[in-house]
């Protein structure tokens, strides 16, 4: 793993909603870069613009940027077919992200057909194996699956095009903690096996501490600070807002004894 090469480079990204006179900058001049094979977190409250960044990267919302390079390609104006193969997204609520009237198998085959992927069937089976889904579930519909199984299908679908980058938008916040543990372990395994790069949006500092090396803290469309997760959890935050966020998570978060012991 060559940690020196950034695979995601973003400079001065701005997303504006609304028309003249009633404009709101959802993302206001955000810059960051993520190295290959790294997991980079975007943390912040709802409305801080963290999910909008993912949507801007995929082209789901109009945006302006000085630099926006993913996997070496400039994607400010156009995104080639290659882009959609290399970059895939996993959403928060797998029930909304999956087609309600497609079977598991069809969910996987659809992107393969659109992307013109060769050997789709073999890949489909491989993707299911990779996420630990049994073949017996192939012909089920999303409503016949549990929440964890649905999220596995969504991840399997993202793996169909053999991507380099996964954009993860709160991938476990709709799941039970026991299932969350399984999905987070799965994401770690996939990263080890395939050298994937994750850009992960979450509001859960526990998940950030577990998954990420570095994270950006966002408020009102701006990155307040970018820091290593070690620094984040060990009181190295320099900004008032970051400290407030940590304090609020800890107020009803994990046991204070654990925290005190870890600090000592």
């Amino acid at each position, binding site marked *: 793993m060559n940690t020196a090469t950034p695979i995601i480079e973003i400079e001065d990204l701005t997303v504006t909603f609304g028309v003249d006179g009633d404009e709101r900058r959802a993302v206001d001049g955000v810059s960051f870069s993520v190295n290959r094979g790294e997991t980079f977190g975007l943390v912040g*409250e709802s409305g801080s613009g963290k999910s909008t960044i993912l949507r801007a990267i995929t082209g789901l919302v109009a945006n302006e940027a000085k630099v926006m390079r993913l996997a070496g390609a400039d994607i400010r104006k156009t995104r080639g077919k290659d882009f959609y193969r290399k970059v895939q997204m996993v959403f928060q609520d797998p029930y909304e992200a999956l087609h309600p009237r497609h079977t598991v198998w069809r969910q996987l085959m659809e992107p393969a057909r659109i992307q013109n992927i060769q050997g789709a069937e073999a890949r489909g089976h491989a993707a299911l194996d990779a996420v630990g889904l049994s073949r017996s579930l192939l012909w089920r519909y999303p409503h016949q699956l549990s929440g964890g199984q649905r999220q596995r299908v969504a991840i399997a679908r993202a793996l169909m095009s053999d991507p380099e980058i996964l954009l993860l938008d709160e991938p476990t916040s709709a799941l039970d*903690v*026991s*299932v969350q543990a399984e999905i987070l*372990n799965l994401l770690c395994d996939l990263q080890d096996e395939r050298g994937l790069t994750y850009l992960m949006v979450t509001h859960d500092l*526990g998940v950030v501490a577990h*998954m990420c090396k570095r994270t950006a803290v966002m408020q009102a469309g701006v990155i307040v600070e970018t820091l290593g997760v070690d620094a984040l959890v060990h009181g190295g935050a320099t900004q008032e807002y970051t400290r407030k966020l940590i304090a609020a998570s800890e107020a009803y*978060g994990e046991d204070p004894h654990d925290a005190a012991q870890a600090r000592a």
Partner: protein
Amino acid sequence: MTDTLLSVRDLKISFHGASGTFDAVRGVSFDLGREKLGIVGESGSGKSMTGRAIMRLTPPAAMVRAERIQLGEVNILSASEATMNDIRGRRIGLIMQDPKYSLNPVVTVGEQIAEAYRIHTRSSSAQARERAVAMLGAVQIREPERVYRMYPHEMSGGMGQRIMIAMMLVSEPEILIADEATSALDVTVRLEILNLLNDMVQKRGLGLIFISHDLNLVRRFCDRVLIMYRGRVVETLKASDLDQATHPYTRGLLDAMPRIHTPRKRLPVLTRDAAW
């Protein structure tokens, strides 16, 4: 626990379907005093169904049986529908997770709160309006007068949830059932809402049933916790003693959580025992 507001004994809820009988709740008993009682469990553990049964709001297909569901002098199991209508909202409030589906999209949020107040207190509309605005202030909404005139689609998730809470608290119920009421909120907003609920318990003697999947939150916020798994209470603990939990399911849940301060390479995954 000084006095018991609500007493539930051997509650069972089952569904009869084409593929046989499914037991969603299999014998749950507890007493609620003027306290914060947490009910924790995964989805499908029957925690929400238990909350619904107390208000007799289970789906028509559900078969509810119990030795007793007693709210003060009222036997919930045999009360008339008219009595239940009087209880719902006035004596027992219910806050659900998603305000999007709980608010009327074509009525301003202020009017919805005022309506809840008027139905339960027979006050004038001017009084109700005044109470509704005051309540919006109490749930930390800035500019309550302006928000009063707004529609649900103009709210963020956190604001919508605070509207729901205001609507439930405006008629000053004895018992509040909060079903994942703070799960969708940001940590900072959540803190404010929890402080508000805490105040209601401390100052007004509200009995709070706090249904949640978040063990950390329940451990720090509640007084007592029931841990539910597949329709049964597997363990009842003082919230502060959650670390001393002995049941393997509770231990498994605690272990599976990512920790901020003591990182681990892999998260332990819960192994389930059919005997639980």
